[in-house]
């Protein structure tokens, strides 16, 4: 097992810059997820670690060895591709032993590793089949098995769950987490799906526009997003963003006045906030339905989505802007009726004109 060190990594495809001066350290045994929208460079970054893309400038170190000029086979990495990339004419067993044979691993060692991987992935009965005789999920396992037998320093996953149907995706997600537990391996996982990221990652690397927006644990990414982009990327339904009309002070903390007249107390330090271009951010689960007297913000109910364990209430404010709040359980609120939400002050974030986030002081 080894950690990964990325220093000042930049990548151009011809004249187009795709990644700009990336610095990142991944600890041994960590499960790191590269998360981002399409085109943000996460797959490119992964492939550069694998050696499938060249780097324009910078350095990549794996386990204390500099690898950015080495061919893929010599970096001590294994990769699981989105399309599995199994060798179609070889049996599962041959698929898994191909790489080991190339580096002259002794036969009994190859057999032992295959047997163990097959046991872990519950597929010993598949070893003599060809990929065309396997289901999508089974091919997935073979791809993972092929990665495991190499006993690499780092496992790389390039959106491996995207081609699976929804039910299989959830199950495989759990199995991947268990695999990480069991092997204790360093794993780098690329996805655009924030649920996968939130559930699997020890830390999330959120990429946007050629740069890293934030590197943090899922909890931190969720509760204290570094930028507005991170805040709106993670969480479903997304965070509410409301323009701030004016700012006041209460004990060193900011109090925001919104265009519809509501006054929201926050726990964000007033110091360091500019006067204009500010946005207030609050997640729907922190807007709780309450009575008109106890409410901080309110309007008229437009739509209600009853999800079973909670209901999402879409509300139209006095000034026309819309927010989403929650009510536990199957709400009895009706559309068209007036409604008020209580805002948890400590959960309010303020985003400045540069979209950087300011969170509550505690």
């Amino acid at each position: 097992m080894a950690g990964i060190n990325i220093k000042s990594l930049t990548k151009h495809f011809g004249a187009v810059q795709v990644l700009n001066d990336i610095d990142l350290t991944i600890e041994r045994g960590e499960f790191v997820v590269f998360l981002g929208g399409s085109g943000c460079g996460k797959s490119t970054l992964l492939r550069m670690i694998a050696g499938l893309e060249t780097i324009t400038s910078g350095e990549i170190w794996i386990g204390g060895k500099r690898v950015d000029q080495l061919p893929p086979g010599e970096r001590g990495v294994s990769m699981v591709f989105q399309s599995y990339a199994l060798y179609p004419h070889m049996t599962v067993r041959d698929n898994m032993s191909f790489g080991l044979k190339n580096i002259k691993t002794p036969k009994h060692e190859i057999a032992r590793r295959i047997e163990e991987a097959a046991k872990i992935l519950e597929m010993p009965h598949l070893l003599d089949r060809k990929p065309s005789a396997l289901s999508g999920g089974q091919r997935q396992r073979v791809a993972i098995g092929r990665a495991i037998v190499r006993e690499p320093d780092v496992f790389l996953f390039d959106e491996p769950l995207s081609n699976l149907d929804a039910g299989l995706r959830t199950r495989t997600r759990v199995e991947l987490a268990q695999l990480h537990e069991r092997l204790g391996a360093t794993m780098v996982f690329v996805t655009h799906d924030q649920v996968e990221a939130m559930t699997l990652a020890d830390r999330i690397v959120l990429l946007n526009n050629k740069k890293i927006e934030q590197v943090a644990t899922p909890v931190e990414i969720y509760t204290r997003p570094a930028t507005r982009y991170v805040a709106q990327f993670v969480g479903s339904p997304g965070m509410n963003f409301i323009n701030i009309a004016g700012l006041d002070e209460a004990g060193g903390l900011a109090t925001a006045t919104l265009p519809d007249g509501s006054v929201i107390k926050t726990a964000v330090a007033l110091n360091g906030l500019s006067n204009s271009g500010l946005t207030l951010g609050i997640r729907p689960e922190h807007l709780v339905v309450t009575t008109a007297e106890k409410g901080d913000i309110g309007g008229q109910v437009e739509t209600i989505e009853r999800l079973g364990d909670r209901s999402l209430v879409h509300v139209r404010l006095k000034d026309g802007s819309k927010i989403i709040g929650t009510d536990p359980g199957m709400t009895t609120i009706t559309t068209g009726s007036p409604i008020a939400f209580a805002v948890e002050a400590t959960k309010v974030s303020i985003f400045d004109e540069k979209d950087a986030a300011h969170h509550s002081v505690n």
Partner: protein
Amino acid sequence: MDKSKSAGRAGYYLYMIPGVLGFVLIVLVPLIANFAISFTTWKGGVIPPRYVGFENYQRLLHDAAFWGSIQHTLLFIISMTIVPIILGLVLAAVLFDYISAQFSQTWSSFFRAGFYLPQILPLTAAGVLWAWILNPIGIINAVLKAIGLDFMAKNWLGDATYALWAVSAVIVWVQVGYCLVVFMSGLARVDPSLYEAAELDNASWFARFRAITIPMLMPEIFVVALTTLIAALKVFAPIYVLTSGGPDNATTVPSYLSYYHFFTTNRVGYAAAIATLQTVMTIILGIVFLRMQSKQAEGGH
């Protein structure tokens, strides 16, 4: 910059070495040598070639046999390209659209295999066969006599008036199969609902042919046209076997003419000039054709 990538690419260049080496040795060098020889007089033996400038080309311009060969080539374009394509299209449409539906797939495949059979023969074997059939005392004339059309029996290959047509007929016989097979496989990728829609619109078979079959087969038509065109310009074996370019140069083509001068009269420089001109013509025609094709593809249909 991208150091490892160009290092990576360099490795692949090695794979092209045998192929490119072969190409240089067997195509490029001889082509250039041939071009050079065309400016000389040479008997091909130990006496070295003598530079004569454009003399060979000038003489060619006055050589009736040469101009005749060009004319005949143009005619063979009709019999090797145009006629087979038309026949091939019609046959393909009939077999694919009509026979398959009205009878069965097997009939269709049976006909296709039958029409394709001439394609696979060595041209020389086909030539021997047809020379025998077209012989003045051969089968065609025997058949004509038997059904009372005595007066139509001719010396098909020995008479200058008919030789060209006889050779053309043989060429059509050989080529139709190729066009047929290519067009039929092209039709397989046409959406059948187009035909069904046309049928609902009361389109006759011919209307469907014109409005659907031909436009949808444009890629195949271009490929077939190009390949048969090049083959027509290079045609050699049938002429050699059937008529040896005769009678009286009535069926000669540039290929045969240059062969004749290379190895029979040993006027190597002259022959090289013919071959060079032939190459230039073919390449020009090829480029023109390819341009036409890409313009067609761009413009869409």
